[in-house]
C-alpha cells in the first residue's frame, strides 16, 4: 500500500503489466478520499435552496472545519493508539476533565494563559501515561484500562467542579480568564483558530508517522509486536509514548472545547471516543493495528463532519440521521476492505 513501485530491472518481464499496476495503484490511492468526494458532491447538489448553495459557501465550510477540529485532533491521537493495536476510550473524559480544569484554573485559581495551558496539557499527558503504564507493565488490554481511566477522569472532573459547568468570562481582574485564551475561539481571516490548530497538528503527525523513527516503531509494533521486540525496539516505551500523545492531544482538544463554549463542563465530551474511533475507522486504519495513515483519519473526520452538516442543512429527521451515519460508516469500511484485499 505504500508508495508507488519503483522499477527494478529483470523483475517484471512484461512492461505492460507495470502500467496497469500503476493505474490500479493510483485508483487505490484515490479511493481513500473517494468517500469524502462522494459526500461533498452529494452535499453540494442537495443543499441548494432558492438557487443558493447552502453548503458551498465560505462561512458554512469554515463552520464544518471548526466543528470537525476537536474530533479531528482527538482522532489523530486515536490513530496512533489504534496503529499499535490498542484503543483509548478515555479521550472524551480527558476532554471533559481538561476543559473543566482549564476553566477552574483561570476563573478560580487565577492562573495565566501560559501556565493554564501547560498544566492542562500535563494533566492530559499524565492520564495518557497512566494508561500506557498499566497497559504495558501489567499487560492488561487497553480497552479495559482506558474504560477505567474514562470513569476515573470523568469522576475527578465532576468532583472537581461539583458536577456543574464552570463559565469562563474574560477580563484582566482576578477571577476572570485571561483574554488571550479566547484566541482559541476566534477566526483569522475567516478561518477558525481550532481549524488552524487541527491542520497544523495533522501536518505534524503526518510527518511524525511518515518520516521519523518513532513513526517506524509505531507501525512495526502494530504490525507485529514480537518482531519489533526481537529487533531491539523498546516496545513498552513506545506504547507509553503513544498513549501520552493521545492524552495530550485530547487535553488540547479540551482547551479548544472550553474556549469554544466559554465554559468547562465535566459532562462534556461524552461519547467523543466513539466519534474519534469512527473517524479513524472510516479513514481506513485497521483496528488490528499496523495499517493506517493520518491522512485517512483526517478524511474520516471530514466525512463525518460534512455528513452532519449536510443532514442538518437538509433538516433530515434526527433519528434518521443516526441511521444514515451508521450506513456511511459501514460503506466506508466496505470500501476500505475491498482496497486492502487487492
Amino acid at each position: 500500500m505504500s508508495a508507488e513501485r519503483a522499477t527494478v530491472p529483470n523483475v517484471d518481464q512484461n512492461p505492460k503489466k507495470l502500467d496497469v499496476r500503476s493505474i490500479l495503484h493510483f485508483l487505490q490511492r484515490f479511493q481513500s478520499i473517494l468517500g469524502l468526494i462522494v459526500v461533498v458532491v452529494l452535499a453540494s447538489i442537495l443543499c441548494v435552496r432558492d438557487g443558493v448553495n447552502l453548503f458551498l459557501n465560505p462561512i458554512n465550510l469554515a463552520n464544518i472545519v471548526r466543528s470537525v477540529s476537536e474530533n479531528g485532533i482527538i482522532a489523530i491521537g486515536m490513530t496512533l493508539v489504534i496503529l499499535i493495536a490498542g484503543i483509548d476510550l478515555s479521550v472524551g473524559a480527558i476532554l471533559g476533565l481538561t476543559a473543566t480544569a482549564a476553566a477552574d484554573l483561570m476563573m478560580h485559581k487565577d492562573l495565566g494563559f501560559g501556565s493554564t495551558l501547560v498544566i492542562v496539557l500535563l494533566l492530559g499527558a499524565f492520564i495518557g501515561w497512566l494508561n500506557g503504564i498499566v497497559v504495558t507493565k501489567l499487560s492488561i488490554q487497553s480497552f479495559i484500562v482506558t474504560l477505567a481511566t474514562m470513569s476515573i477522569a470523568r469522576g475527578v472532573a465532576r468532583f472537581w467542579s461539583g458536577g456543574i459547568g464552570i463559565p469562563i468570562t474574560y477580563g484582566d481582574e482576578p477571577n476572570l480568564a485571561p483574554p488571550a485564551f479566547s484566541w482559541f475561539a476566534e477566526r483569522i481571516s475567516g478561518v477558525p483558530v481550532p481549524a488552524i490548530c487541527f491542520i497544523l497538528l495533522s501536518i505534524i503527525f503526518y510527518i511524525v508517522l511518515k518520516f521519523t523513527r518513532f513513526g517506524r516503531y509505531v507501525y512495526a509494533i502494530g504490525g507485529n509486536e514480537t518482531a519489533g521486540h526481537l529487533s531491539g525496539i523498546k516496545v513498552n516505551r513506545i506504547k507509553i509514548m503513544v498513549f501520552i500523545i493521545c492524552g495530550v492531544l485530547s487535553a488540547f482538544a479540551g482547551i479548544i472545547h472550553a474556549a469554544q463554549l466559554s465554559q468547562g463542563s465535566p459532562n462534556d465530551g461524552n461519547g467523543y471516543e466513539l466519534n474519534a474511533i469512527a473517524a479513524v475507522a472510516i479513514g481506513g486504519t485497521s483496528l488490528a493495528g499496523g495499517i493506517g495513515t493520518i491522512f485517512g483519519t483526517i478524511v474520516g473526520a471530514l466525512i463525518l463532519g460534512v455528513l452532519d452538516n449536510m443532514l442538518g442543512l437538509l433538516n433530515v429527521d434526527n433519528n434518521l440521521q443516526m441511521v444514515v451515519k451508521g450506513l456511511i460508516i459501514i460503506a466506508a469500511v466496505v470500501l476500505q476492505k475491498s482496497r486492502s484485499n487487492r
Partner: protein
Amino acid sequence: MEKNLILQMKGVTKSFGSVTALSEVQLDLKQGEVLALMGENGAGKSTLMNILNGAITVDEGEIFLQGEKLEMNSPLEARKRGIAKIHQELQLVPELSIAENIFLAREPRNKLGFVNFRKMFLQAEEYLEALELQVNPRQPVKNLRVGEQQLVEIAKALSVDAKIIIMDEPTSALSNAEAEKLFTVIRKLKKSGVSIIYISHRMDEIFALADRITILRDGQFIDTVKTTETNLEQLITMMVGRTLTELYPLRQTLIGEEILRVKNLSFSPIDRNKKGLEDITLSLKKGEVLGIAGLMGSGRTELFECLFGMHPRLSKGEILIEEKSVKIKSPEEAIRNGLAFVTEDRKGQGLVPTRSIGENISLPKLKDFSRLMFMSKNKEKNAWKTQMNNLKIKAPSFDSLVSKLSGGNQQKVVIGRWLLTSPKILLLDEPTRGIDVGAKAEIYHLINELASQGMGIIMISSELPEVMGMSDRILTFCEGKQTGEFLREEATQEKLLLSATYKGGREENVS
C-alpha cells in the same frame, strides 16, 4: 498398480488476472495410493489442490471422479463428493471437544433435535481407535498436541467418508515421532482404499510414503514418476529445472577462536507451552556451524530465546562472548552484544507483514539510519539495495509488501535484516522450514559464506540430513537437557535420533 483410477484431472488451466497459475496440468490418482505432489513454492500445487477442493474454479480443463465429470463450486460440495483437505493451518475449534470437532455442524441428533452426545462420543471413539489415537473424545482439542490435532482432522475427514484426502505439509509442525505416527496412519488409510495426495518439501517423507510423484514447475506439468524408479537428484532437477550439484555444499573454513561460551544455563518457564532448560553448557567458535538436533519441545528454541535475552528473569547461567562475561537482559542488549536471531516462526515473530521489505530490513538498525529523529531515506535505500542484491531477494522493489513474498524470500528478508547488524553470532531456528528446494540451496550457500567470513552460527533443524549436511558439530537436545555431542564425521541419523529421543540414557520415550 493395476488398481482403477479414482480421479483424473485433464488440461487444467487457471489464470489470475494476467498471471497464469496453471497451464494444461494433468493429474491422475489411483484408488488406495499415496501420490506426492511436488514443486517449488509458486509451482501451482496449492492452486491445483484448491481447484480439487472446490475453493476455486477452473478456466479450462475437466475433472473426473470415478469416471464422472465433476462441477464443484465450494469446499462443502467437494466434501460431499468425498474429497477432504487437511489444511496447513489446522481448522479446529480449540475450546470444543474432540468429538464435537469431528462432527462439527453434522452432530448426530435425537428425536427432539438436541445433540445426541452419547452417540457422538461413541462414533468419535471408533474413528480415533482406527487412527490409533488414545485420547478421550470428550476433552477439548486445545489439550492435544499438534500431531494429535492433525489426527483429529483426519478423523473428521474419515467421518464424511472421504475417498480422497489432500494433505498439505502435514508434518511441518510435527516432531519426528509424531510424524512417524502420522505415516503409520497414512499407510493404514491406504490399505483401506483411501487415496491420498501428499504435499511436502521433505524428500525423506516423500520417499518413505509415496507410491508415485507428480512434479509441477511454474504452473506446468513436468512428469509423474514411480517413487521406486527415481532418486533425489532426478526429482530436484525436475522441480528446479536445473541440476543441483549438491544440496549441501562443502565448506572450506578455518575455525577460529571461541566466540561464545554458555555455562550452566537453566531456564524455568512460567508459560506452560515452554520447555524448561537444565544446565546447558556449550561453546561456539568463529567460523563454526553448530547444529542442534532435537524434537519439537526439546527446549532447543528456548535455548535461543534465553541467549537472546527474552527471559531475563527466568533464566540463570553465565554467557561469555569473546571470553568476556555479558549480561543480556533484553533483545536490544543481545543485538548490541553481536547476536542475531532468525526465529522459527517467520510470520509470528519475524516479519511485520503490513510493511515493506525495506522497512522490515531496517528494523534493528533504525537508529543508524536516522538523523536526530528523522529517517534518512538515502542511507536506508543503499542498505536495502545491497541486501536485496546480495541475498537475491526476488521482489518488484524494496517497497513491496513483505507479506506478498514467497516463504523463501521472506526468510531472506529476515536474514538480510540481521546481516545488516553485522552480528558475530547468528542463531538460526529452522531456517529452511516451509521453503522450496531452490531457496533452501541458496540459504545453505549463504550459511557457508557467513561462516567463512568468521561468523559463529548455531542452527536448529528438525531435518536430520540438513543438520548433518551443514554442521561442523552437532548437539542433541531432549526434554530440556543436552544429551549428546557429535562431530560431523561421526554423526549418523540413527545416532542422532537415539540421542535426541532418550533422556540421559534412560529408556524414557518422549514422543
